[in-house]
């Protein structure tokens, strides 16, 4: 729509409104995050006042009915479960992506990709239910009690594997054909081409995939609640039950009042802080990589 005939730059007006439209949308996206943080701060404020920041890290345990609000075991629970799952899912996800892109015969590559897409679409509560009635009893027969950090890691692994595979595969598919031609012309075998040319080129995409995987693992709630046992303790081995920050909120918020409820928002704030730290670390890593490339 060009409304002004006298304007010698007829596209200027539309550009202008586009620019402001985009600015407005960006503002909404940015302020949403800000509003969430502000909301979390406001809701957890009573807890900070009554309990104090230090108690969350020094109390004897998590016993809201006795005014004890130790959060560190849940922090560790969240951290270990996410780390464990990403350590399993990263090699398998990247491997599957390489398989789809470079090794699978074409009649197999497409259905395999569809299969992974389907896996990505399964709701987390279904994974949780499967974990509760199949996986946990299996672990219980081997190393009781069953609901454990291990069960959580395995369920999270299943959930983030498709995300990583799909993102990595998409970034592999974007590598210019010329890169592959050059590598072939150098007489590289397929594996050495993938190892020393393809994977370094696709580093940013691989990184994004892993990042999305970890983010999903950190935030997962329902499935984790069903398979991890939810005992508040710092796990000393894989078969110990754990409670994550997310599970803590989901388990107690409907029944919590007053300070107890407020401390659950502190759990949310802590989770948010964890994700911020994680993003900053990831950004730092990406910068270092980018600098290393330009040198």
């Amino acid at each position: 729509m060009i409304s002004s005939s006298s304007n010698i730059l007829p596209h200027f007006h539309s550009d202008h409104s586009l620019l402001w439209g985009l600015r407005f949308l960006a503002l909404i996206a940015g302020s949403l995050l800000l509003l969430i943080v502000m909301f979390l701060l406001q809701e957890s404020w009573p807890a900070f006042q009554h309990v104090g920041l230090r108690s969350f890290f020094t109390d004897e345990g998590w016993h809201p009915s006795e005014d004890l609000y130790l959060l560190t075991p849940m922090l560790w629970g969240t951290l270990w479960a996410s780390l464990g799952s990403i350590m399993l899912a990263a090699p398998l996800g990247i491997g599957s992506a390489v398989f789809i892109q470079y090794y699978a015969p074409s009649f197999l590559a497409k259905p395999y990709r569809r299969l992974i897409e389907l896996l990505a679409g399964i709701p987390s509560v279904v994974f949780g239910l499967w974990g509760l009635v199949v996986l946990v009893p299996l672990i219980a027969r081997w190393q009781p009690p069953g609901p454990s950090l291990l069960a959580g890691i395995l369920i999270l692994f299943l959930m983030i594997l498709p995300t990583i595979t799909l993102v990595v595969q998409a970034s592999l598919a974007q590598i210019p054909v010329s890169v592959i031609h050059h590598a072939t012309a150098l007489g590289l075998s397929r594996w050495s081409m993938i190892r020393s040319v393809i994977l370094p080129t696709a580093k940013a995409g691989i990184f994004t995939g892993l990042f999305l995987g970890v983010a999903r693992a950190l935030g997962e709630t329902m499935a984790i609640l069903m398979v991890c046992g939810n005992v508040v303790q710092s796990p000393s081995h894989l078969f110990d039950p754990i409670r994550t920050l997310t599970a803590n909120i989901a388990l107690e918020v409907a029944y919590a009042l007053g300070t107890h409820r407020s401390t659950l928002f502190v759990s949310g704030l802590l989770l948010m802080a964890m994700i911020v730290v994680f993003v900053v670390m990831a950004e730092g890593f990406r910068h270092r990589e980018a600098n290393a490339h330009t040198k």
Partner: protein
Amino acid sequence: MAPLISEIGKRFETLHPGTRVDVQTGGSSRGIADVVNGLADIGMASRALKPQEHALHGAIIAHDGITLILHQDNPVHDLTNEQIKAIYTGAITNWKTVGGLNAPITVINKAEGRSTLELFLQYFSLSNRQIRAHVVIGDNEQGIKTVEGNPHAIGYVSIGTVQYDARHGVPIRLLPLQHIPATLESVRNGTFPLSRPLTLVSKTLPTGLTETFIEFSRSPAVHDLILKQYFAPLP
């Protein structure tokens, strides 16, 4: 308790055209807090009112029992209160000690804020800090699923929920308490030691529609609904 009141509410709506009964869940403490804050006309509490809540008006509509459940394959058929206490505090950790198989015990506890937990602790005079649990669950169904999948687990749940499952082929067994079988009958006649009243709470003496609804919920006209949820109606 919410599923029961939803059913009663539906029947009440058909008998009193033009009224709507809006049922929300969230635990006994929430039910009472919402009445105190004026957010709800009637609160649901699956426990008796505490001494500090006696300014409120509570009307009991039915009773529910809480009992311990084991897997059907567990050879243990009876536990004394002392044994249960020892299991839950971690003093007994193997079924062998109480005449069962040589297998470690998996202790299931309830999450903070549930009135089932409060009643259990109160009955066995324990505090939640003393309990050494391996699994902490949110709702009854999760506890039943855990026992179903682990023959060496022990948990406690509402008799209402578990009786339904036990009769529908779920391999779990309800333990008697102090040799009194965990049945609806023993809860109804008041002999079962660990039971709780399902209470409707109002801020002031109920009047008008509120009163009609509470009276209706206490009347024999809803006994079939109460029995269907495996709770014990008033005698």
